[in-house]
């Protein structure tokens, strides 16, 4: 349970961080709808929410640690 939460938390947060960097590097080209990176940004944003938000994953990890 703890491992699953860690993986979900880390991967979804990393995904967003990486996509945001990729978006920022492209500057105004990144804003263009014809550029797939804006879709990555919108899609990546979702993953921090379903199946337990990042905040819930923190709670689960803390609980599994015995806190």
């Amino acid at each position, binding site marked *: 349970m703890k491992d699953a939460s860690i993986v979900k938390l880390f991967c979804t947060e990393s995904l*967003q961080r990486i996509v*945001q960097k990729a*978006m*920022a*590097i492209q*500057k*105004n*080209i*990144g*804003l*263009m*709808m*014809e550029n797939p990176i*804006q879709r990555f*940004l*919108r899609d990546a*944003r*979702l993953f*921090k*929410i*379903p199946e337990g*938000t*990042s*905040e819930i994953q*923190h*709670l689960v990890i803390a609980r599994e640690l015995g806190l």
Partner: protein
Amino acid sequence: MDFELSDEQKDVQKAAREFAEGEFDPDLALELDQKGKFPESIWKKAAQLGFIGIHYPEEFGGQGLGFFENLLVIEAFCRVDSGIGSALSSVDLGSEVILKFGSSEQKNQFLTPLTKGERRLGIAFAESEDSRDLTTISTIAERRMDGYSIHGKKSFVLNASLADSFITLCQEPREGWITLMIEREKDGIEVHPIEKIGWRMIPFGDLLFKEVPVPTGNRIGREGEGMAHVNHCYQAMGLKSAAQALGAAQGAFDRAMQYAKQREQFGKKLSQFQVIRHKLADMAVSIEVARWLTYKAAAEYDHKRIDPGFLSIAQLEVGRRLVAIVDESLQIFGGYGYIAEQAIEHYFRDAWAIGVELGTEEEQKDLIAEIMLGPFTSFSPPSVK
């Protein structure tokens, strides 16, 4: 040093806030955002009430207030809606150049109709994808009997399909950089629209000029001054974007606060979870930072003591805070924040457009470092044999 707004400034802020809350209908905002339409009727009303060009002298239709007051209006508008607020504050793009360098006739011709809600402006400076890279300008202004003939292509022009005139940076073969006001109704102008993720109420596009005639009277200032105009314009635009960012961040925060107080999860309000309380506290800190950086830069602009280093510091930090605040606000909404009916969804997309206008973190760091340390020379380590 006084950190209190004057009574007049508080009145401006209050009037702008009340106007926005009364007129910026959330359903209309959603519709305009999805269809990519400019908020025409709200713009006309805002102009009638004097919100457009509030900082122009009274003889040119303004209210004779400072640029600071203009930023208070922009902040209040973007707080209520990031899309409509940004669109209304972008109708006078480039007007700062006319205000500082233009003749009285030009101010009458271009600024007065702006304040009446009759005309809109656009800026056409950059030609590559990078809006700040002006080293590749090839738009040529050839001298003719009674003016110039313009030939070239401009990229990522704000208000491309909307503006009545474009303030355009060109090369005059002998004298160098010049800025000209090019009227939309002239023949030889082609617009290629660009669809984009945020700021959907403000049309972007590429502009193609083919032998467009421009009278000498439409030249701002003197020949060769173009780069000074562009620098001044970017300083004013940087400040406006900071105010847009501040307003959008505050608007996202307001919505997250309200939602956290009403939404229940596991039998208690979201606002009773420490993780949410700390998020909101962090966001409140960020907004204070963004506000005072923006206000200080704005006050310096009005006192004609612009410090480019400080402006970059403000733009960098405000942009960074905006993206983080909007992201955290959306997170507080959870899955509900991801659907279009919630305004926070377009705040998330608009934040990226405002962020681009503020310049990337790397660009601003380069500028700040250059002021502190002098020019940068790239270094590659010697190869080991």
